[in-house]
């Protein structure tokens, strides 16, 4: 949908009929390492998609395990959030924001930190589909 003049469109002309893609993640607020929460595998898939978890998506469980905590910490560092390793309000607010589909970490290398590359302790290639 391309809106040629947004200012001329009256309120309610285009109803918001669909929930944004990651709205359901808000229910994970307060989840902490060691807990299990129904659907948490989906947030692992999110982190996998953007390069923070190297495992295959088929392996994901609903456990808040070390893999998820590590991904969260790296994500929080990359987005200049307070590094807590938990699904706190500031982190969830950032996670549900619309974003570019390109991964933040490619081939186990994060390049988001200003002016330098940081190698991670992984040799598994992931999310390499030509981006």
């Amino acid at each position, binding site marked *: 949908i391309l809106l040629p003049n947004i200012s001329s469109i009256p309120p309610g002309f285009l109803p918001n009929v669909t929930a944004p893609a990651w709205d359901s993640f808000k229910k994970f607020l307060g989840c902490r390492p060691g807990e299990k929460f129904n659907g948490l595998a989906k947030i692992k898939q999110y982190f996998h998609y953007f390069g923070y978890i190297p495992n295959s998506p088929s392996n994901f469980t609903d456990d808040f395990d070390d893999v998820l905590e590590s991904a969260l910490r790296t994500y929080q560092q990359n987005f*200049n959030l307070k590094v807590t390793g938990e699904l706190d309000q500031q982190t969830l607010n950032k996670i549900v924001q619309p974003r570019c589909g390109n991964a933040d970490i490619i081939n186990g290398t994060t390049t988001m930190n200003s002016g330098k590359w940081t190698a991670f302790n992984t040799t598994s290639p992931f999310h390499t*589909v*030509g981006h």
Partner: protein
Amino acid sequence: YSFFPGNPPPRWPDSKRDLTYSFWPGNGLTDQDKSVFTRAFARWSTVIPMTFTETDSFNSDIRIGFFSGDHGDGEPFDGVLGTLAHAFSPPSGLLHLDSEEEWVVSGDVSTSSILSAVDLESVVVHEIGHLLGLGHSSIEEAIMYPSISSRTRKVELAQDDIEGIQKLYGKNPNYNGSSPLTPAIQERETNGGQY
């Protein structure tokens, strides 16, 4: 700033400084829609010695299209918000935008009554950065920061973006270093955000 992995990082070869771009014919974009891309490309060509010219042939260096869901590159779009667009590293030249978004072509996106409205130029400027070889940046003010809220406009290259892209391609000799914007673009933005 950051680059895609590689040593040296991928970039357009020296023989390719005047790139062509085209739009997927099936999208049927209007001239007004296309002008958003013209402005976005101009923001980058202001700071580096590269030019971008639209062509009718979809055999161009850069190919742009709006698609929904699974569109054949293994990176399906996910409907309203979520992922908005993606672009491939040089010299692939592919820029894909999620056609299910409510893209704002003109007007003040910040006052939109549509909560999920997304400013098209803001996203296109970001994706062109990828097409040229930039990865994501941790600096929130940078164009290459990965996320953007709906109803937000962010189109000006930050110093971080400029330093990164000039490391790949050098500096546009006409760029004075004080402002990344051409006077014409700057004037439009200070006159109420209308184009």
